[in-house]
């Protein structure tokens, strides 16, 4: 079909989203897309989520570091609704996640250049002493996620008196 004339095409906004979880979490694009739509539907209802769109255009997640980012397409004028819906994503496939909209742009390229790829994703494992016990931790950009018996604890290098390097 012939595409629409420019004044009839919908206008979009692109939300750059930062995602964080514990190390080892595996989150893929499909799972994140599903959660976006569920969150939209639960908060905005079917008509609201249909109008907001909330489709994931780009997705990247580093399982080692437990951080990732995504680009979400939203209809112009629905960015606040989309923000609210994204804030309600608390877990993906049973893995707790933190979600934050880091910026909004009118074009994909501007969103990529301004808001994506700013966070360090390099991580490494170190041994730390947490709660008087030696533990393995994943260190990324001063953040230290300590592996406990059945869970993780979120710490930073300030929690250790000695220099981690």
């Amino acid at each position, binding site marked *: 079909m012939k595409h629409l004339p420019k004044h009839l095409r919908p206008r979009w906004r692109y939300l750059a989203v930062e995602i*964080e979880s514990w190390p080892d979490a595996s989150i893929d694009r499909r799972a994140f897309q599903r959660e976006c739509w569920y969150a939209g539907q639960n908060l905005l209802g079917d008509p609201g989520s249909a109008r907001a769109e909330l489709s994931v255009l780009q997705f990247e997640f580093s399982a080692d570091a437990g951080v990732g980012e995504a680009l979400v397409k939203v209809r112009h004028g629905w960015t606040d609704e989309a923000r609210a819906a994204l804030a*309600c994503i608390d877990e993906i496939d049973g893995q*707790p*996640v*933190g*979600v*934050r909209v880091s910026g909004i742009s009118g074009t994909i390229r501007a969103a990529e250049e301004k808001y994506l790829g700013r966070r360090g994703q390099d991580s490494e494992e170190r041994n730390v002493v947490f709660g008087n016990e030696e533990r393995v931790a994943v260190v990324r950009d001063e953040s*230290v996620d300590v592996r406990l018996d059945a869970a993780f604890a*979120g710490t930073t290098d300030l*929690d250790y008196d000695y220099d981690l390097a």
Partner: protein
Amino acid sequence: MYEAVHAHPDGQSTVARLAKTAAEFSFEGVVVRNRADERAEFDAERIGDEYGIDVVEGIEIDADDVEQASGAVGNYRTDETIITVAGGTPAMNRFAVENEKVDVLARPMTAGGDVNHVLAKAAVENGVRFEFDLSGVLRTHGGRRVRIIQSLRKLADIVDHYDAPYVVSASPQSHLELRAPRDLAALGEQLGLSSSFVEAGLEEWGRMAERNRRIQSESFIEPGVERGRYEEEH
């Protein structure tokens, strides 16, 4: 804007990690409100300097009965900047709003708790703030979430009518549960609380910390009483 957090061992992330993440989310401060039996050891000044955020020492009193809560409020009032009392039963809600030493009545609408005009008037008189706890909206689903939203709207109607003081929090227990102020404001808008209402509630934590610090500082004598310029230090 400030966020009131539960840090390790009451939560999963340490004060430092919560402060670091909150600073990245453009919060101006965090209030550490661990429960009395799960206190965190931390150096508020060092963490604050490192991440450029105000770290406020507080406590949440989660007692079984009013006598116990009353004792705890008296014990901690002199040392802690902010005291919150976990509500949720008619007796605890009433105790908190009638006690001017309490700063915040946390989660007044959870479980069997409820708020009415009598409590609202008492809260206005004693300067006790009602907490709008958004954690249930952020982290539950289905029918439970519907009821939580209903209870928040009821509380909003009462607070609005009596112009009662209030605070807003997402009550994070880890850095993953933190949400940025703008995201919380957008969520408030969807719940019918308006974004300026949510922002004012997040700012109230900071105002409260500033006021209590001034009152607890050594230079404060009594309300309205100041050391004059003619007074000489001996």
